[in-house]
């Protein structure tokens, strides 16, 4: 039998962090959600960059977020766009607005996709897979 692509189990795309996001992913491995926070104006921003997205100041700190927020919007993937997600459909991808302000793209886990609603309160959970930790969100119980 030939070693065709269909014979191998496809693996999910791993994040390939930009240099400025490395602290985010390193902290996720320790189950901490870090965001850049400006030392000049005090605001958080995301995705990570070397200048504050609000005031362009260069002076910032990686600060730990509460990990709590609300679902701004969400979608349910029924179609398999990537073979590695074949056994996951239907799965929920959401825009989570953290209490600190920034919006993150993530998955909503631990609940039936039919029960997910906009503005639902959620809390970060960390999923360790395959040497990498990915922050996801679950409904606040």
């Amino acid at each position, binding site marked *: 039998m030939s070693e065709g692509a269909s014979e191998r189990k496809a693996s*999910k*795309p*791993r*994040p*390939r*962090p*930009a240099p400025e*996001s490395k602290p985010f*992913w390193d902290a996720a491995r320790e189950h901490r959600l870090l965001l850049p926070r400006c030392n000049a104006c005090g605001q958080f921003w995301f*995705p990570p960059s070397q200048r504050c997205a609000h005031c362009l100041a260069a002076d910032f700190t990686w600060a730990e977020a509460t990990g709590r927020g609300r679902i*701004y*919007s*969400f*979608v*349910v*993937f*029924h*179609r398999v*766009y*990537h*073979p590695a*997600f074949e056994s*996951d459909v*239907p*799965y929920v*991808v959401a*825009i989570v607005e953290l209490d600190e302000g920034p*919006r*993150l*793209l*993530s*998955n909503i886990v631990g609940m039936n996709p039919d029960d997910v*609603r*906009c*503005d639902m309160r959620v809390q970060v959970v960390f999923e360790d897979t395959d040497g990498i930790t*990915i922050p*996801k969100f679950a409904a606040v119980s």
Partner: protein
Amino acid sequence: MIEAHPALRNRCAIVGAGNSRLGQVPGVSSLDLIIEAIANALDDAGLKASDVDGIICRGPDESYSHHQLVGERLGINARFSTSLDNGGASQILSVMLAAMAIEAGLATTVVCGYGRDAWSRTHRSEEARQSQRTRPESQHAQEFGPEYGYFGAVAAHAFGAQRHMHEFGTTREQFAEIAVACREYALKNPDAQMKKPLTIEEYFKARMIVSPFGLFDCSLRSDGAGAVIVTSAERARDLKAPPVMIRGFGSFNNLTGWFADENMIRTAANQSGETAYRMAGVGPADISTTQLYDCFTYMVLVQLEDYGFCKKGEGGAFVQSGALRLDGRLPTNTSGGQLSEAHVEGMLQIVEGVRQLRRTYPRERQVPNAEIALVSGHGGNQVCHSTLILGRSP
């Protein structure tokens, strides 16, 4: 923001419009398709390629400096020539830029066009299809997306639809009306890709893609091209076809992103439209027909609100009133749109706007007393928007 000056109202005109074969056109490259459309537009205008001294187009994604290839095929040199990169907003932007170049004295006769082979490209092999599905939104999207199983434009727009449904009570029945209205128009258009009727029941029976979107909320994968010829109002009077005047245009770009603020439910159509209305000296009540960028059903609904045809949150009720139909308040996407005619990234919307204003269609396709058309373009990573207001020659 500073008030835009309406200096270019009715200063330029579209004097030729054409399209290539549309839908499934195997064995023809996107470049050949655009040349086919340009040849038809030149014929329509009674012009030759050698009369053209400007080319503005948007290349297919894989092409670099596409306007050079187009010029080479047309066998011409040009005073003004460039390719644009605002996704589905590029096509109207090319007409805007043509008018600006003509007014600045940089060119006299400008071809604007776009062509793609999206159907052929994704149907050559399963491999080609797969790579198209998981192609990253941008070269930078290597994180905060694919690892969550987030791929493609369907999901991006579905986020907007979901939030709109949550805030305003919009329903899938209302999206269905948009899909069905477009299909009915396509059935009267011999060039359209979709040939079979679509019912509300079939809309609901179709498979879900990324909910709240099912199959018929999504536009087509098409091969095809469109082109228009822009020249000064003065020169237009001497040409073969009755000119369609460029009354106004505008653009706006929510560069903070589709996910930021309320951008996905209050789109850049709003500010883009205000600029265009101001230049044209008209408002929503003056528009006879709209050709709205319909990559997804929801985008029609939200643009109707953002352009002021109804209040924010009332787009659903507006479409359900039958407004989009030929006998409705605002006949919309009268060629079938990208949902049912062919998806050529907004280029065919311009062509259809021109044709409606010429009033040469048979009665079953003609918007009665079409006087002013509003055409829209939307794209990039969902945040670039452009608006064109066309009028009959006074």
